[in-house]
């Protein structure tokens, strides 16, 4: 074991490669949250009265709520009055009209992250919206999408330019009073993406948002809303990174998806927020509410997530299967190394007839990481012929980490078919030795074995991102074998 433990020591100290800070002039609110802050934020964004009121109602509700404690994660209490609820690159407050007006320093940041904003350099077929701290910086390919009637723009712009759509759908899946973090988000969300795909249109390219937390002591509260009308389809990907900082930072996003008749939405996340150092100092608290509603018949929503970053992850991308014959899918890989904690899973509510749900969750724990799968399946009385398949596999690397599974199943209709499979395995020394004996070193062996373990999830990701996810996984687990 001596060779292996040496490798751990060497690699555990490896740096998080996105941990740089961009030196850019910021416009930041002083810390604290009250009605005045919400009003000021809303005014700064030039929002209509109804939006301000919506936020204020959410704030009032939030002030009566308590932070949830049921998740299997531990952290010091968060002082919500010590957080700044708005930070924006100063040059962005004037709202750049085109890429030429975007601060070059900001463009360089995205360049460093491997997200070329310039359309020419962009990955073929991927339209990118980039959110830097609180504001959307640029949306590429906008004109081309516009010709097809697809709206892909920052949420703040959608509120101004498509108020009727936003009003109809915002909060229709995750109501402002849904939970503590969703209420907080509803009060102070700063930006995010809005996607609308009209009836019968198949979006011809991957849509992508890149989230970046840069400023110190700020929270990031994006709000994303995706609506696919009847027969429409869209695939959307979000990526996230943050600088390395010693203090924890809060990220409380809300994502709502609405799929009407025969529409399909595929939402993929590669989350690589800063996880904190090896002793658990710093890192992002990722407290996120993601929910999709299969509102129409034969509609389909697929959540795919690769969660490798964050000090703490609290996230349950869910589906409400309301339309008859609708399908919800959840594919997840969650990695916890060092002192990371993840409590993640999914919730699905079967309302319509013959609704189907497929869940594949892969949890990988290494170092002192704690990984919890929490899943809830609820089949209501009217949901004739509902089917649900859940598979939860956990892999343990080393003997200091933990894997936990909490499946909740509530079936109110006797025609339902439920399957739940769970397994826990330890990455085998025999497997590693077998690889070594063929000439493959331990680090590559671990990454190969883990990637094999996650294959069912990776193949759900768009091609380029599947490759990215595999690399990310290798980096996250470097030096984890002991």
């Amino acid at each position, binding site marked *: *074991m*001596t*060779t292996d433990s040496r490798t751990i020591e060497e690699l555990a100290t490896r740096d998080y490669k996105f941990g740089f800070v961009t030196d850019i002039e910021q416009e930041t609110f002083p810390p604290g949250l009250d009605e005045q802050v919400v009003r000021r934020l809303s005014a700064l964004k030039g929002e209509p009265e109804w939006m301000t009121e919506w936020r204020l109602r959410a704030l009032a509700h939030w002030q009566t709520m308590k932070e949830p404690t049921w998740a299997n994660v531990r952290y010091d209490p968060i002082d919500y009055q010590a957080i700044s609820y708005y930070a924006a690159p100063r040059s962005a407050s004037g709202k750049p009209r085109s890429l030429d007006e975007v601060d070059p320093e900001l463009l360089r940041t995205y360049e460093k992250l491997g997200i070329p904003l310039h359309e020419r350099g962009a990955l073929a077929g991927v339209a990118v919206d980039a959110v830097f701290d609180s504001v959307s910086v640029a949306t590429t390919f906008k004109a081309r999408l516009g010709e097809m009637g697809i709206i892909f723009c920052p949420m703040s712009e959608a509120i101004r330019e498509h108020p009727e759509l936003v009003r109809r759908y915002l909060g229709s899946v995750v109501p402002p009073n849904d939970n503590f973090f969703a209420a907080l988000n509803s009060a102070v969300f700063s930006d995010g993406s809005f996607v609308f795909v009209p009836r019968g249109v198949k979006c011809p390219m991957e849509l992508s948002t890149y989230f970046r937390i840069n400023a110190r002591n700020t929270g990031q509260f994006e709000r994303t809303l995706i609506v696919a009308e009847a027969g429409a389809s869209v695939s959307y990907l979000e990526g996230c990174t943050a600088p390395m900082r010693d203090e924890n930072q809060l990220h409380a996003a809300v994502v709502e998806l609405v799929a009407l008749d025969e529409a399909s939405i595929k939402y993929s996340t590669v989350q690589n927020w800063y996880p904190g150092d090896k002793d658990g100092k710093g890192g992002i608290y990722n407290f996120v509410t993601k929910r999709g509603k299969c509102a129409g018949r034969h509609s389909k929503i697929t959540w795919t997530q690769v969660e490798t970053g964050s000090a703490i992850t609290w996230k349950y991308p869910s589906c409400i299967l309301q339309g008859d014959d609708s399908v919800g899918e959840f594919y997840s890989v969650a990695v916890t190394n060092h002192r990371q904690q993840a409590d993640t899973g999914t919730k699905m509510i079967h309302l319509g007839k013959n609704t189907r749900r497929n869940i594949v969750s892969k949890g990988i724990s290494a170092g002192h990481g704690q990984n919890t799968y929490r899943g809830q399946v609820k089949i209501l009385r009217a949901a004739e012929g509902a089917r649900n398949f859940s598979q939860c596999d956990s892999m343990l690397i080393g003997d200091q980490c933990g894997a936990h599974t909490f499946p909740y199943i509530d079936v109110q209709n006797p025609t339902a078919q439920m399957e739940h499979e769970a397994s826990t395995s330890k990455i*085998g020394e*025999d*497997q590693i*030795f*077998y*690889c*070594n*004996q*063929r*000439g*493959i*070193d*331990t680090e*590559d062996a671990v990454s*190969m*074995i883990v*990637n*094999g*373990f*996650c*294959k*069912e999830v990776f193949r759900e990701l768009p091609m380029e991102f599947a490759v990215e996810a595999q690399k990310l996984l290798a980096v996250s687990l470097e030096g984890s074998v002991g």
Partner: protein
Amino acid sequence: MQPATQLEIQDLHASVDGNEILHGVDLKVAAGEVHAIMGPNGSGKSTLAQVLAGKDDYDVSAGRVLYGGRDLLEMSPEERAREGLFLAFQYPVEIPGVSNTYFLRAALNAVRKHRGQSEYDALSFLKLVREKVKLVGLDESLLQRPVNEGFSGGEKKRNEIFHMAVLEPRLCVLDETDSGLDIDALRIVADGVNSLRSPDRAFLVITHYQRLLDYIVPDFVHVLIDGRIVRSGGKELALELEQKGYAWLENEAAAGAGARG
């Protein structure tokens, strides 16, 4: 000209969990030679194979092993492999989700990189394996399946020989490759091994039964009993064992140990 010594084991003592299993093994293997190690269950045959490959469950308390003139025991398992030492496992390990081809390309490229050779891309590698796979009569569909997952016992063993054919090692250690094989599978495996025999490649064939040696004819046969090589000879020694069993040598070994004690 004498062929170069490939492997030289000198007074090797090895233990697991504090129990000594090898009590001083001496063995010299030259390039191009095939040596068979025979012995009853529990005599230390597999321990010898594992120690040579570098499994860290075993402690070497005395002796040394020279491989191509270098101290083998100082090398990590992957370095030994890259230097051309190959172990065909008695119980090949399953790696779910990793295709056999992908795995083997990673292995071959690690070996080639070590030798300063260029790495294979997916396409040229596929061409190579299509040739090699015929050698062991392995169904091509097994190439895309996860490593050893859902393979039958015989397929696993043939897969090991297939790996060997692709990696082209200098020293091949076959650990009970015949166990669990029916006579047809045995012949296929043996044919594969025979086709890989060459003047610069040595074999250490570990087996309990003489049967395999009908097909892979060794240059030397060594009998390992209670952690020591008690007798060495030509291929006729294997036939003698087949007739007499191991008991007569075990008795001799016990008597010898008594006399020494």
